[in-house]
Every structure is written in C-alpha cells, then in structure tokens.
C-alpha cells in the first residue's frame, strides 16, 4: 500500500438491529487531503465517522490507518484513537476543565507527557485557533464558536494522523460559524489530513479535495467539489444540492 495513503476503508457495513446504516463503504484518504462527506440526514455519515475511529464497531469490512489494519482484533483500540482526532457537532469539551486543560489532558493522561511540556503545547494549540487569552476559561464561559475551536485545538494537540469533523458547525449560531470554518480552512491549507462531514458548500469548494456523497448507507457519487456540487450525475445528489442551494438563497435574501 502506498505510504501516502493515511486511511483506507474497504466494504464497511454496519446495522443497528435489522436496519442497515452502512451498506458497503470504500474509499481512501491521502496525506494532506481534505475529504468532504455530505448527504441527507440518516444517510449514515455520523455512523461512518464513528465506525472509522471504532467508537462504533463495524459489522463487516476493513480499515487501515497509515497501513496498519485497525479492524484487526489484536489492535489496541486506545492506541489507534490517539492517532485520530475527533471534533464533535456538540463540541463535548470536558466541562470541569479549563480550555487549556481540555487541550493538555490528552497529552498528560494518554501520552504521559510532562505537565509543563503538555501545557506548553496546549497553549501553542490555543494560539493556533486564536484563543490564547481564553486559556483559563471554563467551557461554560466560552461561546459556541470558541468551544469548537478549543475542541479543534484538543484534537490537534495529539498530533493525529487524521482529524474527523462531524458536522462541526451545525450546532452553532450562524454568526459563529465563520470563525470555526476559518480555523478549519487554515488547517486544510497546512495540509492537515481530514474528513469533514458538513453541508458548508463554500468550505467544501474552497478547501475540499473531494466530495463523497452518501445516500442510504452508500457513497453514490464522488469527485471534485465543484463538479459534484454544480454538475452531479446522480438524481439524488442533484436534488440534495439544489435543496441546499435554495435554502441558502432564501437565507441570503
């Protein structure tokens, strides 16, 4: 397997009870790439991300992270997750820790790093997302956009091979979405490998390398963002982007 493939997914399946959610997903992510996943709600996007970092166990299929098969039963799942950053829609910052400690705790507890060194890195990461002055604040004292930027810093601090973003701006007020997208764009331009589940088509077009369009548990179409958004081949894809386009047009009126 070529060494610049960070993540490879082959024929992934997942059902909840009798309801199949993922019906055979395969794709690859190359180093430095930003993959966009979109699709209607219920199409399996979030389940896919959770299967990829093994928070949800896939029923069938194989996943390789930097050439190592992580669906192998003998793999230490905790070790694997250290190498995958995860940014949640609902932020999920640790409520009892300051912004700084939210970012440093993974380094201290999981990587057993010296406390001072962990804090130095954490502060550097907070600076990167523009929140150095808010390092001492608790999550409840931060806005939604700031929380999500701390969450991104927390993921980055672990120096992961890839970062997953699960609808990172969907829980934010419209005026706070921009600051989060700016941070994500900057990281994408620094070639931080990522998979982004999002409906922010501006973001997808400006930094996405490829869009994977999911429908009913399958990737039914994939290609460069501009082509997928403006000139999709599948009827479902076309309808989906038309609806998003109409929604934005109405909002911008």
């Amino acid at each position, binding site marked *: 397997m070529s060494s610049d493939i960070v993540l490879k997914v082959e024929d992934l399946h997942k059902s909840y009870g009798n309801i199949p959610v993922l019906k055979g997903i395969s794709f690859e992510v190359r180093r430095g790439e930003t993959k966009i996943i979109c699709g209607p709600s219920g199409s399996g996007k979030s389940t896919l991300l959770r299967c990829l970092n093994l*928070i949800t166990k896939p029923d069938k299929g194989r996943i390789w992270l930097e050439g190592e098969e992580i669906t192998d039963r003998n793999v230490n799942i*905790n070790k694997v997750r250290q190498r995958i950053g995860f940014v949640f829609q609902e932020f999920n910052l640790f*409520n009892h820790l300051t912004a700084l400690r939210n970012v440093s705790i*993974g380094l201290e507890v999981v990587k057993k790093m010296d406390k001072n060194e962990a804090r130095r890195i954490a502060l550097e990461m907070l600076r990167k997302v523009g929140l150095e002055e808010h390092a001492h604040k608790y*999550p409840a*004292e931060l806005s939604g956009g700031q929380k999500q930027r701390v969450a991104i810093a927390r993921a980055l601090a672990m120096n992961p091979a890839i970062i997953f973003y699960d609808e990172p701006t969907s829980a934010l007020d419209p005026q706070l979405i921009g600051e989060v997208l700016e941070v994500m764009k900057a990281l994408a331009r620094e070639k931080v490998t990522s998979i982004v589940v999002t409906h922010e088509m501006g973001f997808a077009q400006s930094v996405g390398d490829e869009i994977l369009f999911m429908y009913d548990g399958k990737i039914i179409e994939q290609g460069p963002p501009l082509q997928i958004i403006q000139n999709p081949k599948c009827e479902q894809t076309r309808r989906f982007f038309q609806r998003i386009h109409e929604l934005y047009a109405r909002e911008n009126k």
Partner: protein
Amino acid sequence: MSFWEEFISYLIQGWITTLEILAVCIPLSILLGLGLAVARVYGNRLISLIAGGFVALLRGLPLVVTLLIVFFALPKLGIFFPPFWAAVIAFVMCSGAYQSEYVRGAIRSIDIGQSLAAQSLGMTKLQEVVHIILPQAFRRALPGITNEIIYLILYSSLAYLVGVQELFAVAKHFNSLQFRPIEIFSTTALIYAFMATIATLAFRKIEVKLRIPGLEIT
C-alpha cells in the same frame, strides 16, 4: 469535683472517641460510595450484580441490625472485631451504600458526549472514569454526600450498643450515676448539633472551592 467539671471531662473523653470514629468513617464511606457506584455503572455483569446486591442488602437492613450482626453474629463464624472497629465497619458499609446511590445518579447524569470525547483521545475506560467522569459526578453528588455524612455523625451514637465509649455512651453512663438527664442529654444534644453544623459548613466550603462555572447544582 463539681458535677459540671466531672461531666465535662467525661464528655470530652467520649467526644474524642466519636471524632475518632468519624475520622475513619467519613473518608472510608466516601471511598466506598465512589467504588460501589463505579462498580455498578462500569463493572461487568458479575461485579455490577455484587455491588448492586451489597447496596440493596445494606439499605434493606436497619443499621442497628447490621451493627449487631457485625459484632455478635460474625464472631460465631470466626470473624472477630473489637467494638470500635465493628462500629466503623457497620457505619462505613451503611453510609457507603447510601452514598453510592447519589454518586451513581450523578455518573448517569453526565452527558454521553464526555465519554465519547475521552474515548476519542485514546483514554482507557479507567482514565476516562478517573479524569473525566468522577470529577464531574463527585461535584454533582456532593450535596447528597453531605447529607449522608450528617446522618453518619448522628448515628455514630449507635456505637454505644456494642460498648464503644463514645459521646452518647458516656452521657448515658454518667446519667445513670448522677441522674440529671436534662443537663446531661441537652448538653450531649448540643454537641451533636454542633458537629452537624460544622460538617454542613465544611462541606459547603468544599462545594464552593470545587465550584466550576457551568457545573453548579441549581
């Protein structure tokens, strides 16, 4: 020696013993409460069942019965405890069982997202529980724990039943010598009320010290 001089010197002896019981029981019961709650929520089926059964049993017995079992019945099975330790064991088990229910409720009330975020960083279950879940759950459970500690202070007086010379035991004994129940028992009552008040204030102080914006109990 006057009545009051003699009474006070008696009471102080007993009070010291009561404080010794509490000094052992308070930290141990909190630890047991945390341990039982964690075992019930995170243990495998067997561990969870054992911890749950322990809590159900201890909450189903009058404390007096528990105490007498520990002191009088266990020796028949070859397990002996001196009076002081028999009382400590009974109180810790009883208080720990009650406290564990507050902690268990608090753990259950922590949003699942906290756990997902901890797992995503690569934390083991133990790291997650110790560093993420318990610090939050403990804060939420603290008012309930305070309640149990105050009960513990008051029912430490039951130790007199197995012959521990604690505060109530010496008061009772002194009354049988002097028969001045109004002075003797009202003074004793004041001391218990004083200890309960100090405990309330101390735990309030801990609550304030541990307070984190957004985690307050409203």
